[in-house]
């Protein structure tokens, strides 16, 4: 099999959120779905003590040609997935550009600076307006709310992956997803993840 050409090569994707939201799992899942289709995938991420409750970010470089650096050069992201909305701004300030696209989850996780009252968390309207300004196109998802209905807020990350599969030209169809998730999860957890993926795919359109 030969990898199909991409709209951008390398295609630069960033997944951001807060430690504990399933960033790493989402990036590895996407990587797995693409490597089996003969793409070169490089994933850069940081995890460890400094990420506890802190901002986290995974960089994915997807290419038909070769391995790229695990860090995307500044201003060169093509797509940003923000599992936590305010984190989108932190990422766009460094990696954004006028053409960037964005998928964002509406559910905030308040940083300690907001809990203590030293800082204020922006309203949903302010967030939406700011993200409109900073992206060529963006899609919002009430992923955490739906994930809570489905029984576990962590499913939000899989919903975001489902949404990505619907709006990007990356080959991330349901069959590829099902195969990858079955390899990564115990069988009992597969159906709920399929459901989350399908919800993300339809919710975005």
């Amino acid at each position, binding site marked *: 099999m030969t990898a199909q050409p991409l709209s951008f090569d390398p295609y630069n994707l960033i997944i951001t959120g807060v430690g504990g939201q399933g960033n790493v799992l989402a990036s590895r899942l996407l990587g797995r779905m693409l490597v089996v289709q003969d793409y070169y995938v490089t994933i850069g991420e940081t995890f*460890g*003590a400094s990420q506890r*409750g802190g901002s986290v970010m995974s960089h994915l470089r997807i290419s038909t040609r070769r391995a790229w650096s695990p860090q995307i050069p500044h201003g060169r992201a093509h797509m940003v997935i923000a599992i936590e909305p305010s984190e989108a701004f932190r990422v766009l300030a460094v990696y954004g550009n006028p053409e960037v696209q964005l998928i964002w989850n509406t559910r905030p996780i308040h940083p300690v600076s907001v809990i203590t009252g030293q800082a204020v968390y922006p309203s949903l309207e302010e967030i939406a307006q700011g993200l409109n300004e900073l992206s060529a196109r963006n899609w919002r998802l009430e992923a955490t709310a739906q994930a809570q209905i489905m029984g576990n807020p962590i499913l939000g990350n899989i919903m975001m992956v489902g949404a990505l599969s619907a709006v990007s030209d990356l080959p991330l169809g349901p069959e590829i997803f099902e195969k990858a998730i079955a390899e990564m999860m115990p069988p009992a957890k597969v159906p709920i993840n399929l459901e989350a993926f399908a919800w993300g795919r339809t919710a975005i359109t």
Partner: protein
Amino acid sequence: MSIVSTGAKGQTALLMGNDAIARGALEAGVRVVAGYPGTPSSEIIQTLANVATDHGLYVEWSANEKVGLEVAAAGSFSQLRSMAVMKQVGVNVASDFLLHLAEYGTRAGFVLVTCEDPGGLSSTNEGDSRHYAKMMEFPLVEPGNFQEAKDMAAWSFELSEKIRNVVMFRSVTRMSHASGNVVLGELSPHLTGPGSSKARFQFDGDMMDQMEGPVVTFPGTVDVMHRRQLEKLEMAREIFETSPFNTYTGPDRPELLIITSSAAYLYSQEAIALLGLEKRVGLLKLGTTWPLPPRLLAKHLKASEKIFIIEEGMPFLEDNVKALWTELGPEAGTKPFFGRKLGPLPPTNELNPDRVALGLAEILGLPAPLPDPAYRERANELAKSHAPFRAMTFCPGCPHRASYWLMNSALKQDNRDGFVCGDIGCYTMGVIGCGFNTLKTSHAMGSGTGVASGFGKLNRFGFDQPVMAVSGDSTFFHAVMPALVNAVHNQADMILVVMDNSGTAMTGFQPHPGTLTDAGGGALPALNIARICEAMGVKVVIADPFEMAATEKTLLDLLDEPGGVRVLILRQACALSPSKKGKRQFDMTVDELACLAEDCGCNRLCTRIFGCPGLIWDPKAKKTRIDEVICVGCGVCAAICPTGAISRKEVA
């Protein structure tokens, strides 16, 4: 079972650098693996521990890195390929043994893997262990991509056997914790080492017979052994002259030659592509960075007028390449060298494609490849107003938050300017706001107790502040025990608080000598911290940090006790521990009528000071709420609220 152990030869897998290293070791037929957890190294041992039974390995989380290196060395001495794994600071701990090990040499292939953390992403320093290879005279190799992480890990065992000495294999965070495509090789059949089916330690030969004599370093043999060691280094240097892991891409006579290694190779490739310099700039990637191969370097150095050395860490390569260049004599002439020491690269912090591209553009007088300035300015403005600062913090339900709350409160009530000395673990965050800035010293593993032991002897100089130290349970075994022995024997006036959360939490919950399992989950006896302390003759009190009122009183009583060492063990499992994860003990609720918030005498103690991420402060409604997505139901905030507005209900 992961692809690391099941993947077939020729298959392409997406592997994290650490898993690629583990796979390389399996392809080389490693048999004994030991080390101590530390980000970004921990996954290597964990991955191998998970497949140890299937592949007939012995994998151990050792008490500390020095012991880990010694345990692995015994494997090599007994004709088993062996590996020790640690992070950069661990090499310091292991370094005393390492000096002796390298002087005598090894038998079956022996690799020391060090995973380092330029930029201190998960460390308190930017330690660069490559200097040990030069200082202690053994070879150093560094993979430049994920494929090489696997291939060079496997090859390092062969190299070690060729020269009969330890080989240092150095990775960095952006290699160890990044992932990429790796084409797998063949797993080794279950060998017990070169030419032998049974582990056996030979010691009957002559003292200088490296394969059959006693393995000793000894005053009378220093000169002759040191010479033998240098011959091994010379052999490595010759092998490196033609190593396929040293590669060159670019024109025959480049305008500028980049010499690079490790993850900086990936950044250099990216920077060349960003600036479109493929025809002007040459890229010499060194996989073997000590000893440097002089003929290979001379050839490339002579072919270019400018040299740019790009590396992760201190200017190690930069200094050594320049030294080698001067050794070539007058015929080499002079030429400008660029790097971290002479600029334009920053002397500190990790590199990335942008830092390298900026440096490259500066040297060649090109415009910097900067993103759209108008966009960037606006995005920065919005990030400032819309992305409130997110400091690192203890997890919701973390026992350390409660423990520091209690220590802080007890020291304030005691009112004698007492303070706490700390060290390395999640509990290092006691330095910052989430730990109420309780820690006033913090250095290496176990240093809290050692430093407190010193403070505890200053009373003859008029020192009258109460001194406390904190230690994690894994750190207790790693480095606190000798410091505690010192404090007890010298009768230091101090309180040691062992914050026992039942595992090596910070690095992913590895077992340690105080837990009941081995690295692969098998049963082992646990050593009891309280009984160890008691055997040293110390008074020990055990308490639960979640029982806040009782434990605070215990702390105050201990502070009131006269002189000598007192130990308090605060026992409560980590919120992420396998025994707790996903299980909620209490459902937490806030009674909105009872919560007086800013009008309360406490002035929002729960959100303003305690600051657990599971709480929400609603500034419009002026009420505290529980974030049901984040809260894990530890119940501690209910104990803090003075009006009883926060209540806990046991989950059925």
